[in-house]
């Protein structure tokens, strides 16, 4: 075995040298401009110009911020249970977290992407991936709630996801870890040649956004790190960075860093779509959950799907090509014109930019440099558009301002670097505090970016905020990029790990945001639309309470005839039809979260009383002047008692 040289240590050492140089050269270049406060100040009652949807990484959720103020508006629960909003706790949303592995209360949410029409953000939905137990979720921006989650079979570490094509034809989910496909019991050290990487194309219904797996491309056993769609001239293609083309299964930090070049896989999905539409590919047995939340029934349902269409790339000639790209490229970013594909080679000192036009020419000329498992490899020089030479250390991700500039984050040298597309010259650099991962320009992944701000998302803050013990916040930093030089305006703490974000002009979204749910459209199985329908029904030891809530009482608020051993379902409908008048409810001893119910909505929690007594319940959201009076009692009798089931209000 050859001697192990650790390239990361080498680079870290190098970065120390460069850092000390930089300090001398640039002095306090990171100092704030004098009127920064003014430029991020959004006066009380005024609205921000942009929404920023910042993923929570290991929190599993998606946070909604305003830019430029950095104010947090909402944390949308996606993959993790949220007791505050009863997500994954109430009967309606438990099915949303169902998977082939059963109910899963957590995931790692990474890459939000906003739906597009004609390559521009349309603000209808946000898609986001769950890494750990591979899933894609859809958030509906008329309600800012998760309304669909689909599990991805044959995938593991769902990381090169969830990016949408130019007309939201597909949301794409690539596996990070290759695995046996289908899963089976086999020795780990037989990885090479046997493990596979699935790239999943999920079709999106243009009307209701319904997701369905169209096909899975079963690729060689590399790690598929990140991806982006082609746009404009390259619409119809999708690009995935790979690492571990060495196909190692152990000590990857070393063993997956040996090849001088890994690949960007270019996938002509239109060609595969056509192949599949003509009956191509094979249906393979599978088991994955498809969970849908219905806005009218206010209820989620989970369906297990039993097969998936898989496509072997070798059987679709001309559909997949490999573009050699230096040193374990991480981010895979496509500029607004669709011509340039940036491979952010995280272990390389240079940034590699491929040309879509040159790629097509090379394919036309069939100038291949061998193949990998039957997939043609193009020549590096034939597809290279240019190299940004020595811009920093550890390039991770690039976004675009729509004015011919690109902005790349450098994890190791902890900075954002602005450079010019075409001339590849570095224009400006600004430090990040510290260790930046992704960056986000609103619309930066579309044909039409809003090139006013860039948000850098930092993994480490150390001394930047008041300390909070060993665990301190991660953060986002806002830079003004409207001028030639970037200017740091603001940093603000985030929820969980601010892994990546998607931003959009607020005007596109805010007019569509619903104020209430119409009571007349409430089709919840246990919902009621007026006090006339209030009742309590017993079915064996199950008791269903059809309860209403409106300022400032529950109906009924006195219930008798419940017995120890009963399973009591509180189906509670908020009869309000006024904006921003939610009510909450919980009862002493409930082994679940409260409910927080929006006007016109019905939610359900289960209570299994264990002791006789008279137990109070109350409104948990400060709803009105008489909020403290919004309470009631349930009388619980011993299991052998024969007290009649009765209910009342105001008697």
């Amino acid at each position: 075995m050859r001697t192990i040289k650790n390239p990361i240590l080498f680079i870290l050492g190098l970065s120390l040298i460069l850092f000390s140089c930089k300090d001398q050269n640039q002095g306090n270049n990171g100092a704030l401009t004098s009127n920064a406060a003014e430029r991020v100040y959004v006066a009380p009652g005024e609205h921000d110009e942009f929404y920023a949807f910042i993923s929570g990484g290991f929190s599993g959720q998606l946070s909604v911020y305003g830019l430029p103020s950095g104010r947090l508006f909402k944390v949308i629960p996606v993959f993790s249970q949220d007791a505050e909003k009863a997500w994954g706790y109430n009967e309606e949303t438990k099915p949303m977290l169902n998977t082939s592995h059963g109910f899963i209360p957590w995931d790692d949410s990474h890459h939000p992407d906003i739906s597009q029409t004609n390559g521009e953000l349309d603000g209808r939905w946000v898609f986001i991936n769950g890494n750990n137990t591979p899933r894609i979720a859809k958030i509906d921006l008329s309600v800012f709630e998760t309304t669909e989650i689909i599990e991805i079979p044959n995938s593991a570490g769902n990381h090169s996801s969830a990016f949408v094509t130019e007309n939201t034809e597909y949301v794409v989910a690539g596996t990070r870890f290759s695995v046996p496909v289908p899963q089976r019991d086999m020795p780990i050290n037989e990885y090479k040649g046997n493990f596979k990487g699935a790239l999943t194309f999920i079709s999106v219904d243009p009307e209701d956004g319904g997701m369905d797996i169209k096909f899975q491309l079963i690729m060689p056993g590399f790690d598929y790190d990140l991806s982006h769609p082609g746009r404009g001239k390259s619409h119809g293609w999708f690009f995935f960075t790979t690492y571990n083309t060495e196909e190692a299964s152990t000590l990857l930090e070393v063993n997956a860093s040996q090849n001088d070049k890994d690949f960007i896989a270019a996938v002509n999905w239109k060609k595969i779509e056509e192949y599949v539409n003509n009956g191509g590919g094979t249906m393979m047995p599978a088991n994955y959950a498809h969970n849908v939340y219905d806005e009218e029934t206010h209820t989620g349902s989970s369906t297990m799907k039993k097969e998936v269409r898989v496509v072997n790339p070798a059987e679709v000639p001309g559909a997949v090509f490999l573009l050699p790209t230096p040193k374990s490229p991480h981010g895979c970013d496509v500029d607004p014109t669709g011509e340039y594909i940036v491979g952010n080679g995280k272990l390389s000192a240079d940034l590699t930019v491929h040309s879509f036009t040159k790629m097509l020419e090379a394919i036309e000329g069939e100038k291949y440099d061998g193949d990998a498992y039957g997939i043609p490899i193009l020549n590096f020089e034939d597809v290279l558009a240019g190299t940004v030479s020595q811009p920093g250390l550890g390039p991770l991700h690039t976004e675009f301002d729509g004015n011919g500039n690109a902005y790349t984050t450098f994890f190791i040298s902890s900075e954002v670097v602005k450079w010019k597309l075409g001339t590849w010259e570095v224009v400006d650099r600004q430090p990040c505090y510290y260790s930046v991962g992704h960056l986000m320009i609103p619309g930066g992944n579309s044909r039409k970016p809003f090139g006013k701000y860039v948000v850098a998302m930092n993994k480490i803050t150390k001394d930047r905020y008041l300390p909070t013990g060993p665990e301190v916040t991660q953060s986002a930093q806002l830079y003004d990029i409207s001028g030639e030089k970037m200017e740091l305006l603001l940093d603000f703490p985030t929820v969980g790990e601010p892994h990546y974000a998607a931003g959009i002009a607020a005007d596109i979204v805010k007019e569509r945001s619903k104020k209430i749910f119409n009571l007349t459209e409430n089709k919840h199985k246990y919902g009621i639309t007026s006090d006339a329908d209030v009742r309590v029904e017993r079915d064996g030891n199950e008791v269903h309470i059809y309860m209403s809530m409106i300022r400032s009482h529950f109906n009924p608020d006195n219930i008798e005839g419940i017995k120890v051993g009963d399973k009591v379902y509180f189906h509670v409908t908020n009869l309000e039809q006024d904006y921003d008048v939610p009510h909450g409810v919980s009862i002493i001893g409930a082994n679940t979260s409260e409910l927080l119910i929006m006007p016109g909505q019905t939610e359900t929690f289960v209570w299994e009383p264990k002791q006789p007594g008279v137990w109070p319940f109350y409104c948990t959201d400060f709803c009105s002047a008489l909020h403290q009076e919004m309470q009631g009692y349930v009388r619980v009798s011993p299991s052998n008692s024969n007290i009649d089931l009765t209910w009342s209000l105001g008697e």
Partner: protein
Amino acid sequence: MALAALLPLLLFVFPLWKITLEAPQYPTPLGMYIHINDFADANPHDIKNINLMNHYVGMKYIPDAIPEFKIFPIGIVITTIIGLIIAFKANHKWFLYWFIMMVLVSTAGLIDFYLWEHEYGHDLDPRAIMKFTNPDGSVMGFQPPFFGTKNILNFTAHSYPRLGAYFLGLGIALGLVAYYLGRKQTLKA
């Protein structure tokens, strides 16, 4: 004169009056249109929300219908028919009588409106959640203004006529104009 008689019919198209309630918690104010034959929300669910506010001080719910919604439309139709008959069959003196009749009918309507408002604002549930008294110790009423703007606790209430009322007024005024024009012609002749 025919135009004068027809204009009040626009009351079936446009609202007669509007009451608007402003409060800090209602950046979009609550509002209610009063039509000749109906109460209507200014924005969806406004009347339901006005009722919800008012129940704290023991006010009655705004009813779905009041007897006036039957009487007023009949009154308007009848006066229009009378006006049309006068316009084609009678001389200008009758124009003046029609004008006087319309003023009387409208005044009666306004008095009725005021009485309803007064009743609505003062006939409070004795078990009201919150009871307020005036500085002189009497029970505070919550009558919306008849015409104009008035502060009621945390609300600023506005009450103004709308397009329907203006057309009614214009119709009545035209009746008077028709009378003068008719008289002028008669004097010339």
